[in-house]
């Protein structure tokens, strides 16, 4: 049961791509929250500005579902 996995399609934006990737599909156990992916990719938490699941704003504690597209964007600020 606990070993069941799901496929998450991850899109990284801006500085997050540096040394990582643009888009990639990865397997995670069922019940994975966004923050586990953030940790897994070693993204600096203080840079994380926007989390989108299937294009809809979500949070680091949001639960992921099999087949989700998770986009992780850096902080936005104007000037």
């Amino acid at each position: 049961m606990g070993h069941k996995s799901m496929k998450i399609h991850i899109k990284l934006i801006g500085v997050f791509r540096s040394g990582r990737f643009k888009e990639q599909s990865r397997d995670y156990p069922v019940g994975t929250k966004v923050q586990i992916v953030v940790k897994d990719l070693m993204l600096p938490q203080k840079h994380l500005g926007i989390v989108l699941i299937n294009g809809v704003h979500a949070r680091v504690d949001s639960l992921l579902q099999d087949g989700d597209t998770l986009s992780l964007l850096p902080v936005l600020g104007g000037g």
Partner: protein
Amino acid sequence: MKFLTTDPVAVPSAVQYKRCTIDLQSGATTLEDVPCRNLEDVLGGFGRSYQVLAERQVDNAYCAENPLIVNTGLLTGSSAMTGMRTYFSGYSPIKGSKKGLPSAMWSTGSGKFGAKLKWTGLDELIFENCSEKPVYVVIRETVEGPQVELKPADQLLGLSTHDKIMALHAEYADAHFAVIGQAGENWQNVYMGAVALSTENQLKSGEDKCRFAGRGGMGSLMGYKNIIALVAQSADKLKPLSPEVKKVNINVVKGGGSTRLQPISRGGGGGTWAAYDVMQAFHAVPLNNFRPQGNDLPEKLCRENVEQDYEIKSEACYRCGITCHNNVYAKNADGSRGEFLAKFDYEPLNLLGSNLGIHDAGQAARLIQLGDNYGMDSISLGVTISYLLSYNERHPEKPLLNGASFGDYEKIRDLVIRAGEGELPEIGRGSMRLSQATGETSYAYHVKGLELPAYQPETNPGYAWAIAGGHMSMATYGLLTREGKADIDSWVKGITQDKLHMVGFDMIGLCKFFDIANGIGTQMVVDCLKSEFNLEIATDDIRAAVRRAFLRGLALELRQGYSKEEFALPAEVYEQPNGHIQLPQIATPEFLDELQKRVWAVFEPELEALSL
């Protein structure tokens, strides 16, 4: 400033600031210590200047009664990080109501001029009337206190902002400068003149790395008054860093608030340029006059693509650890760093790049540099040109001016040059007037006469209540994009409670990047004020003063004839909704009607209670 109290909230008059009023007609100068009326006066910047503007009825920006107020904030020239700001205030030549009355306006920039001005011993300059001949103004520190002198400026006429600064630097080695470019000299035909402020880096390297107080045409007002430059001459007077301020400064750099602005090499986000990547993820980067097409064209100006052909160097204003400037240099054939081209910030890069159909970084850099050298606000310039290009696209049989179209670099360059030279009032006077002349106003991307920054209005109805520029006087530009807020309650709260607080930075002398999310009503600011001046001010008092100052700005807009209908977004937003933007469509007529009702229901009773 003089502090005869530790409690400026209870006894504001026990804080005095030094003002010099200069009658440009007679040359007379009056120095006085002015007691503060309230905490807004103590904090300074527009919080103080707007109270002066409120005392005057001005019906035309170019009239003798319209003052140019140059001042600093309480923390300008202090050891608090980013404390470099100078403010320029007056009734704006470019921003005005449909009734034809000019709006009160302020504009601000960093660089070192503000700190130098503060160190001369002056807190405020008020320029009255106009000088008959072109002058520059020297403000210097002497043993008897600050001294102000007018000097003939004929030798500076016709020079670019950078060349004026370097010419003055040759004469005043220990000074810093605020100058206008040719655009400000041509104030009759250019209402979007900016004021350029010198930086240490510029004076040392000889490269044109000014900072700008661009918005609202304060450089044109300066030109109208025949002031070509200001020179602030004094020794550097930084106090030794106290442990309290040191702690705050470390927090500013390391605490997370400014991380996104710091260099990528230091683990930062790489400045405001990074907004390109974020906005493009939603297909919300303005393209061809604010009509994103859902394609990847804007990515050509994203950093990772520009980096392949150009060298990018992170640099900073004097003593600032945030280091938010991304200076772009050509790469020589051998890979070494070549000529300095321009500083890439999100707004100028987009509005003089993708939004004009220019996707080549070198061409965008040249347009930014040209606009800067002529001393024009890059936002107003870019958006007025994009309006023209859009008009020409719609009327191929009868295009305006040189017939420029999106992406036609040579013709766009020609427009920038001729606008700066004062030969194209159609561009120089901004998009509101141009669109009124063509009769096609729906796709002129301004609100209340001031051109919009590079955030699509579809994503930011808060523009309507910004009092001095869409993204720097109302921080709602990220409410939908960053925070995902699409409900009316969040927007009412954002506009009427949280996001207006960013204007506090335009009072106190700090850059917004000091703590953009929280404003100035914070313990960090309280600690700085205590350590630098022994002032005891609570965060709530600061927030209340910022709110009053913001409301005064709104009240002044209403007094200058703005109707409620003018607190609106460009009509194209509702008439032709852009389906490419991948965010909830909140900019519907229904949403905006409801927002109008609810926002005014909060502001109106407070405005009634506020005496101008």
